């Protein structure tokens, strides 16, 4: 059994809390807005996700950030600070200082920034997060071209060179490229478990599983990190099979890293150190 209740928060905000019937002591999962979509997520995805996680023992909180859904307009540019202040409130309401934070697209970007500045983050759930380009991205792009009918190649090339509309990545809030690897390594050093899933919808910036190592380096092979690449899936998980797969994967990851007694113990990782055990961290379809 689970229970779902609205929570009043400061500054005109409120949240939906989906909780197990009895407290379990597991971290609170905080799902952030996927861009402009209010707290139910695209295609109501966050609702069954929250209910599934709550049934597995995890309290889940969904709320609208300023400027989205029912929240007042944005007046504080420090979005990560807003989330941290909500952590303060949730800590008092739910009696915990352990948070798993994340979500889709912009939510992944914000979760990254929150984890960078708030030591209460124990887990990061990143759906189509930051990735850097380079050789493997270009190779993946070439492969994408080859899969299309030859009659469409000219138009695709023209679109690549004459981009009038901003690309999806223009709306993202990523760390500087030179900071990505170091910040990720710090997450691992802080003992944060990470689930990162890239979909085919991230093709404007992610086309090949080898970009993961190119972006995050050796830390991508840490035993508490799980990367997935689902090229046949879209960015917002429109189809029911993709939604079910995502929910199952997040549940399995959450249980594995937080709800089992033998979860991987935190280990420190520093740049330049020997690689951790070569556990297959990337389960990708190449």
């Amino acid at each position, binding site marked *: 059994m689970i229970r779902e209740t609205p929570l009043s928060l400061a500054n005109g905000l409120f949240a939906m809390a989906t909780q197990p019937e009895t407290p379990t002591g597991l971290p609170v999962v905080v799902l952030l807005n996927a861009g402009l979509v209010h707290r139910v997520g*695209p295609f109501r995805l966050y*609702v069954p996700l929250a209910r599934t996680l709550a049934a597995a023992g995890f309290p889940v909180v969904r709320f609208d950030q300023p400027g989205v859904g029912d929240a007042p307009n944005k007046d504080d540019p420090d979005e990560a600070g807003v989330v941290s202040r909500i952590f303060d409130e949730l800590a008092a309401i739910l009696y915990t200082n352990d948070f798993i934070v994340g979500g889709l697209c912009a939510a992944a970007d914000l979760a990254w920034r929150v984890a960078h500045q708030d030591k209460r983050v124990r887990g990061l759930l990143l759906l189509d997060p930051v990735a850097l380009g380079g050789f493997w991205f270009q190779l993946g792009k070439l492969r994408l071209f080859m899969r299309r009918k030859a009659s469409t190649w000219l138009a695709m090339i023209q679109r690549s060179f004459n981009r009038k509309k901003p690309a999806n990545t223009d709306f993202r809030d990523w760390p500087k490229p030179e900071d990505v690897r170091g910040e990720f390594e710090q997450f691992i050093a802080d003992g944060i478990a990470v689930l990162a899933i890239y979909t085919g919808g991230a093709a404007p910036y992610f086309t090949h599983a080898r970009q993961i190592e190119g972006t995050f380096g050796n830390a991508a092979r840490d035993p508490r990190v799980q990367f997935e690449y689902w090229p046949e899936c879209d960015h917002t*998980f429109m*189809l029911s099979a993709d939604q079910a797969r995502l929910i199952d994967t997040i549940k399995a990851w959450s249980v594995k890293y937080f709800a089992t007694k033998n979860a991987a113990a935190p280990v420190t990782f520093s740049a330049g150190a020997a690689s951790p055990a070569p556990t297959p961290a990337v389960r990708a379809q190449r």
Partner: protein
Amino acid sequence: MIWNGGRRLFAVFRQAQAPQRAAVLVCPPFFHEHFLSYRLLSQIAERLAANGISTLRFDYYGAGDSDGDSREFTLDGAIADTDAALDALRARVGGVPIYMLGARSGAWPAAKAATQNGFRLWLWQPVADGAEWLDHLERLDAKERGSRSRYPLIGSATKPADEGHLVGYVCAAPLRDAIADTRLADIIASAPVPVDVIADAADPPFASAAREFRLPENVAHWHGGADMQAIFFTKTLAAIVDELAGVAAQPGTS
């Protein structure tokens, strides 16, 4: 939260900035148009509150933040949930005039409640014909499954149809049949009430409208696709809401 029998529904009440002159029950669209319209309806409610009109917005059972799996959403259920939300609104606002606002397919439960209670009806980009809308949803679903923007890495293939679903939501045969059988004009004809329509520029004239407002493309476009687009609450939108609210100030218009 409000209740329809054993069904727990999520609702947001926005109190009018004093003095309260009227109250509006907002019936949201179905399926993906629910999340696409959510911020817009929230901002409309905020503007109405500034005009002295309280609003109650709610999610149908099996939709949004309400209880229930998406498989449990039905048209009859949405209509019954609207009646329950109306009771909750009445209990909250006392004897002030009540108006119904239905957005897109939410026009159907709103019209049902309005005609049964003799309330003035505001229709926001209403879906006039269920069969035509179903056809639109099926075309949109097929377009999205074949979209190279949505699925850039599956070559020239199209994703197979998601059995019993439309545009990411459960829509099995009984619900499809119910939608296909629904015509807004028939609901309103059962007991005519004053109707104000906020329509897309390309929509045909609404026969029984007391007043009609036409939305410019930059604020009307939000329901055309499956992905969220920014809707800016422009001066045009604010002026339309203000004009709707202005009627509420006039005695005998409820």
